[in-house]
C-alpha cells in the first residue's frame, strides 16, 4: 500500500493540487457565500430561491424545455443511430455521416444557435418552406417561444444521443440478432426483445447527458428566447453579471447543481436497476 502510494504521489501531486486550487476551493467559496447574507450566516438566499413563485415558473419552463428536448433527441437520434450502424453497409458513407455528425459538436453553440436564429426568423427558410408547402398560411413566430428553444437545443444535443446509442449498438454482436431471426422471430420481435434491451444502457446514458446539458444550457436559450423566456442558468448569469449579488447567485448555482446531480444519480440508479433486470452490467 505505502509503496504504491510512494509511486503514485509524485504523479498525482500537481494534478490534485491544481484541481483543489481551481475547482474544489472555488466551489467551496460558492457554497459558503450562498450561506451568507448581509455578512452573517443565513439560509435566507435559499429561502428566496424556494419561496418565490417566479423561480418555480422559471424552473418549470427549464424542465419543460429540457424534457421535450430529451424526448425529441431520443426519438430522432435512435433511428439515425440504428440506421448508421445496422443499415448503412458502405464504410465510406458511414464515415461521411459520422464526420457530419461530429462537425456540429466541434462548432460553438453560438454559431449553431446563430444558424437557427436565421432559419427560424419571420422570413427565414423554415417559415418560407412551411408557408410555401401550405402547412402554414402565414409565417409563424418561433423566436421567443419555447418551441424555438427546443428546436435549437435538440439540434445542439442530438449528436450526443446518436453517438451514445450508436456505440452501444455497434458493441452488440449481430450474431445475436441472426440467432433470434433464425429461431423464427419477426424483425420487430428481434428488435424489441434482443436489440433494444441490449443497447438500453447506451440510450440511458445518452438521455442523461442530453437532459443535464439541456437543463444547464445558457447560450442557446439566451439567443433563441428573444428576451421573452427565462431559463434557470440565465438567472445565475444575471446575478453575477448585472445584479452582483454573489450570495444569492451562489444559492441559485447550488440549486442548479443539486438538481443536476440528483438527476444524474437517479438515472444511474435506474440504469443499474434496468441493467440488473436484463442481467447486464451497466457501463
Amino acid at each position, binding site marked *: 500500500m505505502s509503496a504504491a502510494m510512494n509511486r503514485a504521489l*509524485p504523479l498525482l501531486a500537481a494534478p490534485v493540487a491544481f484541481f483543489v486550487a481551481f475547482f474544489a476551493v*472555488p466551489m467551496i467559496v460558492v457554497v459558503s457565500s450562498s450561506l451568507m447574507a448581509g455578512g452573517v450566516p443565513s439560509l435566507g438566499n435559499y429561502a428566496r430561491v424556494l419561496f418565490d413563485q417566479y423561480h418555480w415558473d422559471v424552473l418549470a419552463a427549464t424542465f419543460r424545455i429540457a424534457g421535450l428536448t430529451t424526448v425529441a433527441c431520443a426519438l430522432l437520434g435512435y433511428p439515425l443511430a440504428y440506421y448508421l450502424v445496422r443499415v448503412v453497409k458502405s464504410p465510406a458513407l458511414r464515415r461521411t455521416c459520422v464526420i*457530419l455528425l461530429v462537425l456540429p459538436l466541434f462548432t460553438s453553440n453560438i454559431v449553431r444557435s446563430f444558424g437557427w436564429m436565421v432559419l427560424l426568423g419571420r422570413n427565414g427558410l423554415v417559415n418560407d418552406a412551411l408557408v410555401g408547402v401550405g402547412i402554414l398560411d402565414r409565417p409563424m413566430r418561433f423566436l421567443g417561444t419555447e418551441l424555438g428553444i427546443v428546436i435549437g437545443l435538440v*439540434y445542439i444535443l442530438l449528436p450526443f444521443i446518436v453517438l451514445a446509442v450508436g456505440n452501444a449498438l455497434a*458493441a452488440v454482436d449481430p450474431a445475436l440478432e441472426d440467432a433470434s431471426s433464425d429461431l423464427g422471430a419477426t424483425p420487430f420481435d428481434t428488435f424489441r426483445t434482443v436489440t433494444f434491451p441490449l443497447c438500453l444502457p447506451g440510450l440511458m446514458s445518452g438521455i442523461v447527458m442530453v437532459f443535464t446539458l439541456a437543463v444547464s444550457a445558457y447560450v442557446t436559450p439566451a439567443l433563441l428566447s428573444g428576451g421573452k423566456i427565462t431559463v434557470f442558468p440565465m438567472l445565475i448569469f444575471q446575478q453575477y453579471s448585472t445584479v452582483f449579488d454573489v450570495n444569492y447567485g451562489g444559492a441559485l*448555482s447550488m440549486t442548479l447543481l443539486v438538481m443536476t446531480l440528483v438527476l444524474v444519480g437517479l438515472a444511474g440508479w435506474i440504469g443499474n436497476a434496468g441493467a440488473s433486470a436484463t442481467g447486464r452490467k451497466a457501463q
Partner: protein
Amino acid sequence: MIARLLLRVVSWSVMAYLILPLLVIVGSSFTATSYLAFPPQGLTLDWYGRMLADNSYLAAFGTSTLLALVATAAALLLGVPAALAIARCEFPGKKFLLSLLMSPLVLPHVVLGAALLQYCAALGLMRSFTALLVGHIVIIMPFVLRSVLPQLTPEQRALEEASADLGARPMETFFLVTLPQIRSGLASGAIFAFISSWINVELSIFNTTAEMTTIPVKLFNYVQYTIDPVIAAVSSITIGVAALAIILLDLTVGLHLLSDRR
C-alpha cells in the same frame, strides 16, 4: 418493408437537420447583399475582408487560439501523470479521485464560470487570461483522461516492466515505451480538449472583458444585437476550424465512432 423505408426517411431527414444550419451560415457569408440572405444572392468575399480589417476579430481569434493551446498543453501535462497513477497504482481514494477529475463533465459550466469569477476576484485575478486559463484546464482535463486511460492496459504494462527489467530508468521507459503506445489516445484527447476550449462560451463568458475576449464570446455578444454577413463570415471560419480538427482526428487516430472494430 415500410418500417425500413420509414427508418430511411427519418434518418436522412435528421442528417439534413444536422447540416442545414451550418450550410446556411457558410452560404450566407458569401452573399453580396448587406443583409443575411440564404441562398446567397451574388457571390463576394467582402465580408471576409471586413472581418480581416477589424482588429478586434483577429485579437479574439488570437486569444481563443492561444488559450486553447496553452490549456491543452497544461491539461496533457497534468492529465497524463494522473492517468498513469490511476491506471498503475492502487491507493485509497482512487475511485473518488477519478470522479473528482471527471466531474467537470457533469457540472453545469455556468456554475463553474460563476465560481471561478468569484474566486479569481478574491485572488485579484478577476476577468484575466489566467482566470480563463485555469477554468479551461479544469473543463478539458476529463477529455485527456477519457482518451488516455483506456490505453493504459495490463498488456501495455507488461512492456513497461520488460523495459524496466532491461535496465531502463523510469523516464526512459516513459518516453520510449509508454508514450509511443498511448500516442493515439494522446492525439484524440488533445484534439477534443483543444476544440472544447476553443468553442467554450458558458464558462468563458464570466471571465472575459470587452478588450480581452474569445471568439465565441465575442460572437455571442454581437449576435444578440446585430445579425450581418460579417458574423456569418466569422462563424464560417470557426466551422472551418472544426472541420480541420475532425479531419486531423480522422487522419491521426481515425474516427472509430459507431464501428465495432476498436
